[in-house]
C-alpha cells in the first residue's frame, strides 16, 4: 500500500514537472499571444502609436493567413502607457497577467528603460523598435533585441549629406534646438559629433520643454548667430513650429529632422513654410520599391482610413513583428521564451519583405538595422525621396 502511494506521488510529481516544463505563458495549442505597449492616449504621439499597431496588425494578419506560427494563431494585445514611464510598467504587468508570451513594442524612451528590469527578470523576448534606446541592448540582455539606428546616427547622416551637397559654396554654420530630455540629448550628441568631424562653426545649443508651441525667440537667436543648418530637435509639431518662424524671418536654412519629419501631418504643416528639409531612416520609405509588399498587404488587411494613416512607424513595427514571428516559427512546436531568444541571437538572417535589409543579431550584438539613409522632403509638393543609399555611421 505504502509502495503504491509512493508510486502515485512520484507519478504526480513527474507529470507536474512535465507540465511545468512544457507550458509556456501565452502559448497554447492554438494561439501565441504577443504584447504591445504604445502611447495611445498621449496628445502628441497617439497617432504614431496607432501607426505602430497597424504595422503589427498587417504582419500578424499576413502570418496568420499562412497558418500562423506552426499552426498557432497570432494574437496581439495592445496596452496604452500615455508616454508615462510609470504607466509603461503598469501596462507590462497587466500584459504579463493576461498571459503575454513576448513583446513586440514596449513604449518609447524612458518607458522602455522603466520596463527593462521586469523584461530581464522574466526573460520575455522583446523587440525594441518604436523609439531606439541603446541602453536596452548595450550591455546585451539575453531576451531583448532592437532594430533601428540611433537618433544620433540618423541626424549625423543628414548633416553629412547637407554639408557635402547642399551648401553651394556657403560656409556652414550649424545650430540645434532640442527637447530637454533623453531624446533631445541624443539629438545634441549628433550636433556635437558633426561639429567635431566636419570642423563646423556653430551656435550654442538651445533647449525647450516638450509641448512648446512658439519658437520665435529661439529662431531669432539662430538667425542672429548666422546659422544656415538647423537641427530641429522636436518630435512632432515642434518641427513645423520652428520652420514657420524661420520662414517668417526669411532664413536661408537647411533643416535636419528625426524620422517623424516624414509623417504626413508634419509634411502638411511644413507646406506653408516652403522649406525642402531632410529626415533620416533605416526602413524603405513608403511608396518606394522596398515598401511595395508591405503596402500591398496593408491594402489587403487594413481598412481604408487605416491605410491612409500608415507611416514609417508602421514599417518598423511590421519589420520587428516579422522578425519575432520568424524566430518563433524556427522554434517549431516546442515554443519557449528561451528558444526565441536563442534563435534571435543565433546569427540567422531574418527577412522583412524588403522593408529593411535582412536582419541578423548575434550573441554579443542585439541591435540591427543600424544603417541609415537620408530622405529629402519637398514640403510644397509633399514628395519625399531617398537621396542616399543605406550607410553605417
Amino acid at each position, binding site marked *: 500500500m505504502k509502495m503504491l502511494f509512493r508510486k502515485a506521488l512520484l507519478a504526480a510529481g513527474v507529470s507536474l514537472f512535465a507540465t511545468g516544463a512544457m507550458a509556456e505563458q501565452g502559448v497554447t495549442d492554438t494561439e501565441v499571444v504577443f504584447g504591445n505597449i504604445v502611447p495611445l492616449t498621449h496628445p502628441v504621439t497617439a497617432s504614431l502609436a496607432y501607426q505602430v499597431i497597424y504595422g503589427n496588425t498587417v504582419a500578424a494578419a499576413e502570418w496568420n493567413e499562412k497558418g500562423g506560427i506552426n499552426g498557432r494563431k497570432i494574437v496581439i494585445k495592445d496596452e496604452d502607457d500615455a508616454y508615462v*514611464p510609470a504607466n509603461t510598467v*503598469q501596462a507590462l504587468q497587466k500584459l504579463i497577467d493576461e498571459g503575454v508570451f513576448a513583446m513586440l513594442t514596449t513604449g518609447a524612451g524612458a518607458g522602455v*528603460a522603466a520596463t*527593462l*528590469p521586469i523584461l530581464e527578470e522574466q526573460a520575455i523576448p522583446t523587440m525594441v523598435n518604436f523609439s531606439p534606446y541603446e541602453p536596452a541592448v548595450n550591455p546585451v540582455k539575453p531576451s531583448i533585441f532592437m532594430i533601428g539606428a540611433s537618433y544620433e546616427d540618423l541626424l549625423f547622416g543628414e548633416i553629412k549629406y547637407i554639408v557635402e551637397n547642399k551648401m553651394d559654396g556657403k560656409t556652414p554654420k550649424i545650430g540645434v534646438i532640442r527637447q530637454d530630455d533623453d531624446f533631445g540629448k541624443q539629438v545634441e550628441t549628433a550636433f556635437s559629433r558633426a561639429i567635431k568631424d566636419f570642423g563646423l562653426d556653430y551656435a550654442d545649443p538651445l533647449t525647450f520643454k516638450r509641448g512648446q508651441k512658439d519658437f520665435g525667440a529661439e529662431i531669432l537667436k539662430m538667425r542672429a548667430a548666422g546659422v544656415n543648418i538647423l537641427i530641429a530637435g522636436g518630435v512632432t509639431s515642434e518641427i513645423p513650429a520652428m520652420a514657420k518662424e524661420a520662414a517668417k524671418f526669411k532664413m536661408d536654412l537647411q533643416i535636419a529632422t528625426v524620422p517623424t519629419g516624414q509623417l504626413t501631418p508634419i509634411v502638411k504643416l511644413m507646406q506653408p513654410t516652403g522649406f525642402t528639409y531632410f529626415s533620416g531612416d533605416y526602413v524603405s520609405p513608403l511608396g518606394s520599391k522596398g515598401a511595395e509588399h508591405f503596402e500591398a498587404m496593408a491594402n489587403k488587411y487594413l481598412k481604408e482610413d487605416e491605410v491612409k494613416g500608415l507611416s514609417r512607424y508602421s514599417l518598423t513595427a511590421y519589420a520587428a513583428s516579422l522578425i519575432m514571428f520568424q524566430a518563433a516559427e524556427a522554434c517549431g512546436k516546442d515554443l519557449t521564451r528561451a528558444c526565441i531568444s536563442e534563435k534571435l541571437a543565433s546569427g540567422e538572417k531574418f527577412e522583412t519583405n524588403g522593408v529593411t535589409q535582412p536582419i541578423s543579431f548575434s550573441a554579443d550584438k542585439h541591435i540591427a538595422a543600424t544603417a541609415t539613409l537620408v530622405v529629402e522632403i519637398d514640403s510644397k509638393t509633399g514628395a519625399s525621396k531617398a537621396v542616399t543609399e543605406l550607410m553605417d555611421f
Partner: protein
Amino acid sequence: MRTGNHIESYPRHISLSDNPVVWFWLVALMAAMIVLPAFSGLFVLGLAIRILIAAVGAIGLNLLTGSTGQISLGQSGFLAAGCYTTGLLIADYNWPPELALPMSGIVAAALSFLVGIPSLRLKGLYLAITTLAFSFIITQFLLFAEPITHGPYGVRIEDTVLFGFDLAEPTTMYYFCLGILVLVTLGVLNIMRTRVGRAFNAIRDQDIAARAMGINLTTYKLTAFAASSFIVGLAGGLMAFQFRFINVDIFSVTLAIEALAMIIVGGLGSVAGAIIGAAFIILLPEFVGDAIGLLPAGISDVLARGALEIKGLLIGLVIILTLRLEPDGLIGVWRNLKRYWSRWPLSV
C-alpha cells in the same frame, strides 16, 4: 438605540478610536489587505502598490494642506527629491537600501526649509505658486545637473534588498509599502493628538488667533513643512523601489495636482480621507477604461482614443462635485452614512 458619543475620560478622548466596532473593521480590513497578494496577479498587485505609495504621499500632503492649511503644489518636487535621493545613493554611492530609504525623507525635509522659510509670510494662492515654483526648480535641477543626477537618462536601481527582503519581488514590495503606510498613518494620527497637531489645526483655522494663544507660527509652520516633506520624500523613496528606473518624466506638475485632488476628494484634514482619496484617484482611470470598454464598439473606439483627456475631465469634475456637494469629501460621505445608519429610523 445609540443617541450620541459620550466621552467620559481624557484617555478615551485622545484614544485613536473608542469604538470596538471601528477596531473590528480595521482588523478585518488589515486581514483583507494581508491576504490580497494570494488572490491577485501582477497587475492588481502593481495597482495596489501604487495606491499604498500614493496614500503615503497623500497623508504627507494632508498634514501640510489639510491639517495646517498651507496649500502646496510642490509635492512632485519633494517626491522627486526623495526618489532621486534613494536612487542615486544606491546606484552611484553604493549605499545600503536600508539607509538610502530613510535618507529620502531626510533630504526632502531638509529641502522643505528652503521653500518653507521664504514662504512663512505667504498664504493661499501665493504659497501655492511659490511651492509650484520650487517643484520646477527641482525638476530642472534633476534634468540639467547631469553629472550628479544622470540628467535625462534616468537612474537604474539594481540593489533592492532591504533587511534581506528583495523589494523587486512584487509581493514583498506590497507588504513593505503596507507596513510603511501603517507606520505613517499611526505616526500622523499620533501627531494630530498632541499639542503639535492641535497647533497645526489652530493655524489652519485662524492663524492670528493661534498666535494670540501662544503658538509660534514660524516654528509650527516649518515643522508642518518638514514633517509633510519627510513623508512625501519617503513615498518618493518607495517609488524608486517600485519602478527601479527613475526619470524626471515621472514627476510632472500633473502629479502635484493629482495629489491635491486625492486629499480634496478624500476629505481635507482626514488621514482616512487621504487614503481613500488616493485609492479613488488611482483607480479612477481603471474604472473609466473598463466603463469605456462596456460601451458599444463605435463609441468605445472613439472614447478610448481620448482616455487621457477623459481622465483629466473626470478628475476635474470629481473635484468640482466634491467641493459643491460634499466639501468633507468621501470621508464626509462615509460619516454621513454611518450617522444615518446608527440613528435610523430617526436619521434625517
